[in-house]
């Protein structure tokens, strides 16, 4: 699925590390959180496969913007947090 800039998304509330060896680049603090697509950064071989020397299909990578106070209550009001996330971690909010 292709996400246009401005699209409201939710990061999948998925915890592969509880199911066995894995390498994921989606930080724990954004799982299940709502964010907004800022831009598409390109498409890259999936690091989750590269990490195990498996054939790695290309996946789109996005800059996703989060309201930082939703992630960390002690943050300053109005602060944003920008995270690079692969498409397979995102779904429409």
């Amino acid at each position, binding site marked *: 699925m292709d996400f246009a800039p401005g699209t409201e998304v939710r990061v999948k509330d998925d915890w592969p590390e509880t199911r066995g060896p894995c390498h994921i680049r989606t930080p724990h*603090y954004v799982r299940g959180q709502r964010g907004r697509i800022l831009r598409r950064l390109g498409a890259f071989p999936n*690091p989750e496969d590269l990490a195990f*020397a498996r054939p790695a299909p290309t996946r789109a990578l996005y800059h996703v913007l989060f309201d930082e106070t939703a992630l960390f209550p002690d943050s300053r009001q109005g602060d944003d947090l920008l995270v690079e996330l692969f498409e397979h971690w995102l779904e429409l909010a």
Partner: protein
Amino acid sequence: MDQDNPRAHHDMGGVPRYACEPVDIAPHSLSDFDKEVDALRQVLGLKGVMTVDELRRGIESIPEAEYHRLSYYQRWIRSITDTLLRKGFITEDELRAALEAP
């Protein structure tokens, strides 16, 4: 943030334990060991032996106590060694012999 799910020990962004610690932003020099490990990783990447993603996976699978005890580049060489052993590029006997060589 889902507090019910255990994060992996390397996934420490936003962990309250570090929130009150000042960040050391002073430039620090690299030791000869650090530079050698970095060079080795680059050669292994160029030769197609291992990717940076495999390096990261190997670093993340270092047991927690050891992970925190090792320096940045010590984690790298630990991951590189584990990867080379697992893929059969080197054997444990060869590694032991090289480490024991004068």
